[in-house]
């Protein structure tokens, strides 16, 4: 039969999201594979054009740092969506809720609690206080409902067995949700018929979910109708498009630091009608730039006196200041223990096996196997500074060895995960490319997960790095709202 797009498809020995090891299509992908197999090359090309037009005219871009000037790029969406069956998703969702609940509790314990986790010797005190994400200035700053990780982006990968594992937690300023929504909007325009066979969970309520969660953390003094704003560093920020997008989705003002003033420990925005009180700030500025009085005095992005206002209970900053200690990649290794300690439950989602490099024994073993392991700086995000042993040159390995020995606290090593692969359109064929998944977890009245999340694809052949800043693409991610009935779609063989 004419299955041109999948001709010569090779799973390369990896776990493939679509095909099992015998080459059979997994049940939840049958209808999609059938639809793609029926496409003529002309029809496929037409849809690629449709997709490109829709992204270009909407100006969906991000900025890549490190080049001479910030480069604006589009984040290419692959036409073949990723599908997650209902029961699989239920497990993932429960695992994410569990993990974020534990992280919220941990952060509350550290900043406004009794630091029981340290007293009980679950996490060493020096590890917490030496984390670059730990902020003494946040001690005593309460967040209503313990919603310190109001928006969390937890990066998941699937290993060679297809088991979901947590690769890293992002509980500072995770970005990417705008792509989730735009990818879905684009798919419904480019491929409306593909939705007909499956019942896909909607993601379009994200703006409402986020606004509800933000209003939920307003200080009691704010009353019934709190004023929420989105705080952006400005147009030159990599994620500015997303800041605009979120402010629009929620129907709130997008402000910069210079639009806000603090007087008598109350935050207000400068409007044409004078000062208007602000109750909740969804900030997309890093901690150290938020308030030049408390943090970097040279920051012109921040608002002098903001931390004092938060401490006074007159404004809530979301995500909370100091969350970086929880997504420190060395603290990450303790999260399964935190779940057991705070919740008395076994972790539903496993970590990737990790090694702590200040420990002499673990470090010695890691340095022997550098070419087999991944080494990451503990406080970076976006894939910056990561060394993937198997694909690193000797010079790179030597460099990593030097850096680890100079500052073992600030690096962590992990086993290489044979990331699962997914057919991805490369030129005119589907090829297997590695993927991960960043679901978005919101802490509102309860902890909730947006169905699916951002599936990122490493577009370069063999590459394991999926970050948008490192040449990655994305896929629309479909969570099925019920079980797939096997009968209504024919098998392919």
């Amino acid at each position, binding site marked *: 039969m004419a299955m041109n797009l999948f001709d010569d498809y090779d799973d390369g020995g990896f776990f493939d999201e679509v095909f099992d090891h015998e080459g059979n299509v997994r049940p939840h992908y049958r209808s999609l594979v059938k639809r793609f197999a029926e496409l003529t090359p002309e029809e496929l090309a037409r849809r690629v054009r449709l997709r490109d037009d829709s992204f270009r005219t909407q100006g969906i871009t991000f900025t890549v740092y490190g080049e001479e000037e910030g480069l604006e790029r589009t984040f290419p969406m692959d036409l073949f969506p990723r599908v997650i069956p209902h029961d699989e998703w239920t497990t993932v969702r429960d695992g994410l809720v569990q993990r974020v609940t534990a992280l919220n509790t941990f952060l509350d314990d550290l900043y406004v609690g009794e630091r029981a986790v340290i007293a009980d010797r679950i996490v060493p005190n020096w590890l917490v206080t030496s984390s670059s994400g730990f902020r003494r200035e946040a001690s005593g700053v309460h967040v209503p409902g313990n919603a310190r990780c109001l928006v969390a982006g937890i990066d998941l990968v699937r290993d060679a067995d297809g088991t979901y594992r947590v690769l890293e937690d992002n509980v500072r300023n995770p970005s990417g949700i705008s792509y989730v929504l735009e990818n879905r909007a684009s798919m419904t325009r480019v491929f409306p018929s593909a939705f007909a066979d499956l019942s896909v969970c909607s993601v379009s309520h994200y703006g409402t979910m986020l606004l509800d969660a933000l209003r939920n953390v307003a200080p009691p003094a704010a009353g019934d109708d709190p004023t929420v704003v989105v705080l952006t560093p400005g*147009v030159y920020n990599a994620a500015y498009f997303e800041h*605009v997008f979120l402010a*629009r989705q929620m129907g709130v*003002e*997008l*402000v*910069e*630091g*210079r*639009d806000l*003033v603090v*007087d008598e420990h109350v935050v*207000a*925005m*400068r*409007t*044409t009608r*004078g*000062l208007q009180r602000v109750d909740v700030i969804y900030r997309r500025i890093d901690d150290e730039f938020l308030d*030049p009085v408390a943090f970097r005095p040279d*920051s*012109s992005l*921040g608002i*002098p006196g903001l931390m004092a206002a938060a401490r006074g209970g007159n404004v809530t900053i979301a995500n909370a200041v100091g969350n970086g200690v929880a997504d420190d990649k060395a603290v990450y290794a303790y999260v399964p223990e935190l779940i057991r300690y705070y919740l008395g439950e076994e972790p539903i989602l496993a970590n990737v096996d990790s090694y702590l490099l200040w420990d002499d024994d673990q470090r010695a073993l890691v340095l022997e196997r550098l070419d087999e392991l991944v080494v990451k700086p503990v406080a970076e995000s976006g894939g910056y500074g990561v060394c993937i042993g198997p694909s690193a040159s000797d010079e790179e390995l030597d460099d990593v060895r030097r850096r680890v020995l100079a500052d073992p606290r600030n690096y962590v090593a992990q086993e290489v995960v044979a990331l699962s692969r997914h057919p991805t359109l490369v030129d005119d064929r589907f090829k297997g490319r590695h993927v991960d998944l960043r679901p978005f977890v919101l802490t509102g009245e309860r902890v909730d997960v947006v169905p699916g999340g951002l599936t990122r694809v490493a577009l370069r052949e063999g590459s394991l790095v999926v970050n948008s800043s490192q040449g990655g693409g994305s896929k629309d991610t479909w969570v099925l709202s019920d079980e797939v009935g096997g009968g209504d779609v024919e098998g392919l063989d």
Partner: protein
Amino acid sequence: MLARHAESLFWTGRYIERAESTARMLDVTYHGLLEANAYEAEPAWRELLSVLRLDADFRERGGGASAASVSSFLVLDEENGGSIISAVERARENIRSVRELVPIELWEAVNSFHLDLRARNLRRDLDQQPYVLYKLVKQRCQLIAGVASETMPREDGWRFLQIGWTLERAEMACRLLDVRYAAQPELSDFHHWQSTLKSASAFEAYRKAHRSSMDPSDVVAFLLLSRTFPRSVLFCLRRAERELGLLSGSDAPMTRPERLLGRVRADLEFTDVRDIVGGGLHSFLERLQHAVRQVAEAVALQYFRNSQELLLTALDFRPAGAGPAPSSPGVT
């Protein structure tokens, strides 16, 4: 709306109008002096720089005032904040910072104007066909005005754009009159006043009102006091006054900018042109411009910087460089 957004729209309007009015003044001055010799031309070009308050900046560049030197200073000199290319650049910076609040077509109209000017060989335009260049600038500014008018909802953002636009136009109209009145060869020179009217696109409208005469005081009266011609000073002030009134609401007490503007407009309306044409026009226009600038400052105080903010600025609590981005060369 956010004060910063309002201010950016205000300055977008001002800078676009500045580009257009500068092109109009250059056009009429250049073509009026084509037949003059260098001794006659130099004072005229200096006069133009003087009414634009750019004479000191120009002197710093050194060299004499000629059609070539003044035109390039006022058109393509990026160091000169009052040049057309700078005004368009600043209009673009301002509209860019509110890009998400304005219709996409408006952003595109301003951005493509900026890009097209950058792509042109402006020096060659000035050498060979200044008329074509000035016409292009006028047309693109009018295109932007038209796009704004046809796409923007009549809300606060529109009002700030209009207030900036009309206050700038009122001031530039005063300057045009000033420079033309100073440069007139004889009071009754028909061609001189005809080209003055043409430079404001006012010739035909004037002709309908005054069929036979080309009396200087009629021309001055028309450009100052016409109630129907959209580039007259009075028309601009009335329009700004209306938008200011809509901003503050009909049952609210008058704001300071409204009171100041109401007074300027009334003073102008009750002026008899015959009293000022003669020796006093220049100082009258100077006073009028000063009053219009005070209105603009009052708008800034009322809407862009409230007293709270001024206090903080005075105490130097705000981080360095965090002030409102657009500066206002030439109009302070």
